[in-house]
């Protein structure tokens, strides 16, 4: 007997409010970290698709942001796994998913899909930056090195994999490889995220989740959020660089440090303006697709009105009305869409709109994940989730506001260091 365990709080009990009839074991088991998981994988996939628009389809206008999107996608990649680890009750056993996958489960594919994707992105970055890596080795070898530069040289030597050939033929081959990898990468990125949608869409016990549209809706919103994040971050980093350039703060300008570019603030401004407004165009297209699918889902449910519609209607139009129609569709979709289609788009307006889009997609994830647990399996009661703000324990930290901030901050920290090795804003006419 576990006698000392009196007044034990069950996982989920602390943040779940029950109303009317809810089964005794029902709680909001999948909380904020599971909201963040599809959100982060969506950002990864979206950023990659954006970079591929240039690499595969040769959209020249997106050249600058494409390289940034690729490196940023790589920085986001480990963070896509972080929410899952924070959510697991037995995080140290997380590796079982890769070691002993049980193939009838949608989650078991995670290891395979995730690793495939990671390998593709890593090798694409390698091909894109190979010339830069070799040049950096030569540059660093022929100069008096500081301690940090010595470390950088070592890193470059390791990741060059001993290949120093940068003849035109070799570079041509790199170019071709990049294109092929980006081409394979698009379906894999879509699969990575569509499959996250499948994890939800295939839960037959959940009336809100179960729809074959779920993977497609997830892919579209993934591309939307990924592009929006790239616009915001690209613009912000360019502002930072414009601030750093005249002040000689070279730690924000690794490309400048490498001496491969001679930039002026005007160049940077022009580049920033051009890229953000161009990318915003693609954002609009994917937004239309995403919203169409989401509305189709709601209309179809209302029209067919099967048994579960009774409770879903109450959740969608009453309990979660504010979150769905005001926050998600209003502030997160309609408002930024209007901002993007009004003529004379500026970087600043594109950025504000993109931030709203990011918020809208986050709310969409919230409304799917938390909304799907807002009603009882019996359809006779409701559950409400309240996000723990002040952490009282490890659990309320990781599945509360603390965990959210941790997950949001992590990609930027990774990107800062990754940018030291692979300058995301490195500009070279010969490069891809």
């Amino acid at each position, binding site marked *: *007997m*576990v006698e000392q*365990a*009196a*007044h*034990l*709080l*069950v*996982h*989920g*009990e602390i943040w779940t*409010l*029950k*109303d*009317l*009839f*809810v*089964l*005794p*074991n*029902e*709680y909001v*088991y*999948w909380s904020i970290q599971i909201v963040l998981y599809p959100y982060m994988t969506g950002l990864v996939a979206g950023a990659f698709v954006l970079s591929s628009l240039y690499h595969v389809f040769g959209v020249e206008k997106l050249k600058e942001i494409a390289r940034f999107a690729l490196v940023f996608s790589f920085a986001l990649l480990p963070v896509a796994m972080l929410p*899952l680890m924070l*959510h*697991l*009750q*037995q995080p140290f*056993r*997380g590796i*079982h*998913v890769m070691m*002993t*996958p*049980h193939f*009838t*489960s*949608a*989650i*078991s594919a*995670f290891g395979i899909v995730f690793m495939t994707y990671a390998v593709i992105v890593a090798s694409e970055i390698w091909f894109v930056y190979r010339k830069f890596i070799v040049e950096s080795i030569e540059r660093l070898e022929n100069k008096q090195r500081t301690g940090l530069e010595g470390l950088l040289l070592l890193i470059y030597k390791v990741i060059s994999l001993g290949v120093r050939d940068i003849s035109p033929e070799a570079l041509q081959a790199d170019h071709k490889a990049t294109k092929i990898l980006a081409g394979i990468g698009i379906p894999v990125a879509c699969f990575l995220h569509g499959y996250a949608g499948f*994890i939800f869409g295939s*839960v*037959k*016990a*959940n009336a809100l989740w179960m729809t074959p549209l779920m993977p497609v809706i997830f892919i579209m919103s993934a591309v939307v959020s990924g592009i929006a994040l790239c616009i915001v971050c690209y613009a912000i980093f360019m502002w930072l660089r414009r601030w750093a350039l005249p002040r000689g703060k070279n730690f924000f300008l690794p490309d400048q440090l490498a001496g491969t570019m001679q930039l002026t603030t005007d160049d940077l401004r022009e580049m920033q303006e051009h890229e953000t407004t161009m990318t915003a165009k693609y954002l609009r297209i994917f937004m239309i697709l995403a919203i169409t699918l989401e509305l189709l889902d709601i209309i179809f449910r209302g029209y067919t009105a099967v048994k579960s519609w009774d409770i879903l209607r109450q959740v969608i139009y009453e309990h979660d009305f504010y979150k769905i129609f005001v926050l998600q569709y209003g502030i997160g979709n309609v408002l930024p869409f209007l901002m993007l289609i009004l003529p004379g788009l500026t970087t600043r307006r594109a950025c504000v709109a993109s931030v709203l889009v990011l918020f809208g997609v986050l709310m969409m994830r919230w409304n799917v994940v938390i909304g799907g647990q807002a009603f*009882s*399996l*019996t359809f*006779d*009661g409701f559950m409400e989730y309240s996000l723990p703000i002040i952490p009282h324990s490890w659990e309320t930290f990781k599945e509360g506001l603390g965990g959210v901030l941790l997950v949001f901050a992590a990609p930027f920290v990774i990107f800062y260091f990754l940018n030291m090795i692979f300058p995301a804003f490195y500009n070279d006419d010969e490069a891809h």
Partner: protein
Amino acid sequence: MKRRDFLKSTAVFVSGAAVSMSALEMLDPKEVLAQNPELRWGFLVDTHKCVGCGMCVKACKTENDIPFDANVTRTWVERYVMTREGETFKDSPAGARNGFTSKLIDQNESGMKNVPDKDITQAFFVPKLCNHCELAACVQVCPVGATYGTKDGVVLVDRKWCIGCGYCIMGCPYGVRFFHPVVHTADKCTLCYHRISKGGNTACAQACPFGARKVGNLRDPNDPISKVIMSQRVGVLRPEYGTKPQCYYIGLNEEVH
């Protein structure tokens, strides 16, 4: 030794060793026990006999080390109260671990509901537990195979292998699963596998003073529960999910799911 001789004697040795090794086939005692095609555990609940005393919940928690005060339970009892206006009120306060001792119906945030006796057309209790489905959704969705079905029809969780992702909890249409507050892995009714596989009874069925709950072998036509299932009108919960539940109910009606 000539090469030919060497090959010859190697072949003889390998084949001889293989023959004798084949006699040492690894036998898992659990598999031998479970492979009995004559055995398929099932459960029968007679809702007419249940009075909502909660002895089954208490016995289950004690037997299976589920902390008594923790608000999760492997089995619970639901109360249904129907009124003249056609309303149905349901509750199961703390899984009815202390039994139903009040006429007030617990509506959680909406408070306690008082339905006057004269308005009640019918009221009854329904005990619930894991249905040990033939095509269990939880077994299908477990990413590491920690949840599995035994050959004799019981769905179990391997506490040493469960990663605690909660997918099975989400996947179960009956809400029988939860995270164990001490072990921190998915948990559910085992049909007291440790007892029934040694010829015993489940803790809940043993504790039930009215014989509302019974465990038995569905493959044995002479088993008391098989006889009832064959000769009376019984139902299962939520057959629309296609999980083929193996827990049968006498006296189900459409409000129960």
